[in-house]
């Protein structure tokens, strides 16, 4: 029994670089002490096997090539078609974005138009008496002359109130009501029996007429109109109550049954 010689281990890289030749060659050669006797058959068979390996793998690679080429060509074609699709999608995206921008501009103008229509609508409903309004103006209280039960001249007539209302419109009033009844373009002021009706509702004296308008000028301008003159003379000559005062905050109700039965907006929107 001999102890085996101490073994020497190199690290991996040294092994790979230095031990390129199979160390067994040296070991067997030193054991034998010279070149081996030539047994060629095994070597030839081994080399033939190597040749077969080479030939088969070369053949295989060659055989696989057309398939690989076809696959590659197909992939390239697919890449091109996808790129084309991407480009067209980009174009579509751009045009859609332009469309969105245009629609946004349109929307903005629509909103503007709607807003101006809204403000015009509220203005018109105010003028037409369809909504309640409030604001400064004048408050005129008229009453029959005291002790005028017999005399015809001391009673307030429907035509007097019509004159008064027209005078207020003329003086620049924006909304007028008589006894809490809003005057519109369809309102009526009439005698029915012994009472005056406004919008077909009977009123009793004293009659309170409220008009919204410029509080500084409305009263003065009203008194300068023909109606103002007539009423001043009625007060002076017949003792009819006629009191004009400025009010800072009046609230006029809406005219409840203003409904157009026949008129339609021209142009039709």
């Amino acid at each position: 029994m001999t102890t085996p010689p101490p073994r020497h281990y190199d690290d991996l890289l040294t092994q790979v670089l230095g031990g390129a030749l199979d160390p067994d060659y040296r070991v067997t050669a030193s054991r034998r002490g010279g070149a081996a006797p030539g047994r060629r058959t095994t070597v030839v068979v081994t080399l033939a096997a190597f040749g077969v390996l080479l030939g088969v793998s070369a053949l295989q690679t060659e055989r696989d090539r057309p398939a690989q080429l076809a696959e590659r060509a197909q992939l390239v074609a697919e890449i091109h078609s996808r790129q084309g699709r991407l480009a067209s999608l980009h174009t579509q995206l751009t045009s859609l974005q332009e469309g969105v921008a245009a629609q946004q501009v349109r929307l903005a103008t629509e909103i503007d138009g709607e807003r101006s229509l809204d403000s015009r609508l509220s203005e018109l409903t105010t003028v037409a008496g369809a909504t309640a309004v409030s604001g400064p103006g004048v408050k005129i209280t008229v009453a029959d002359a005291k002790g005028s039960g017999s005399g015809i001249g001391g009673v307030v007539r429907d035509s007097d109130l019509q004159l008064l209302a027209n005078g207020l419109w003329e003086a620049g009033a924006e909304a007028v009501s008589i006894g809490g009844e809003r005057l519109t373009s369809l309102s009526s002021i009439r005698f029915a029996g012994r009472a005056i009706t406004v919008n077909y509702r009977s009123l009793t004296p004293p009659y309170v007429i409220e008009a919204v308008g410029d509080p500084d000028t409305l009263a003065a301008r009203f008194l300068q109109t023909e109606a103002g003159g007539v009423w001043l003379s009625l007060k002076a000559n017949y003792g009819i109550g006629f009191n004009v005062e400025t009010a800072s905050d009046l609230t006029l109700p809406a005219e409840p049954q203003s409904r157009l039965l026949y008129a339609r907006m021209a142009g039709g929107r």
Partner: protein
Amino acid sequence: MVALVGLVVGVLAGIFLEPSVPDSLQPYLPIAVVAALDAVFGGLRAYLDGIFDDKVFVVSFVSNVLIAGLIVYLGDQLGVGGQLSTGVIVVLGIRIFSNVAAIRRHVFHA
């Protein structure tokens, strides 16, 4: 000379007889070829060094091919087949290079 004839005969047989390789072994064929190439160059160098031994050559040839295939197979099972075959090819390539360098020194005496 006879050895060279054996190699040529083997190549021709491989090409013209077209032995069918099982599908499961096909991925290991290139690695086996590289490993065999390493053994062949090693044998050639030993021959030129005057220490060639046919038994060692056959054993190194067969074991090289089998071990290379086995390593790559193991790598495939572990999911690192590509990296392992790259490693095997790098190591074998380095060995082939240094063996060929030694052969060149023998042939050209440089």
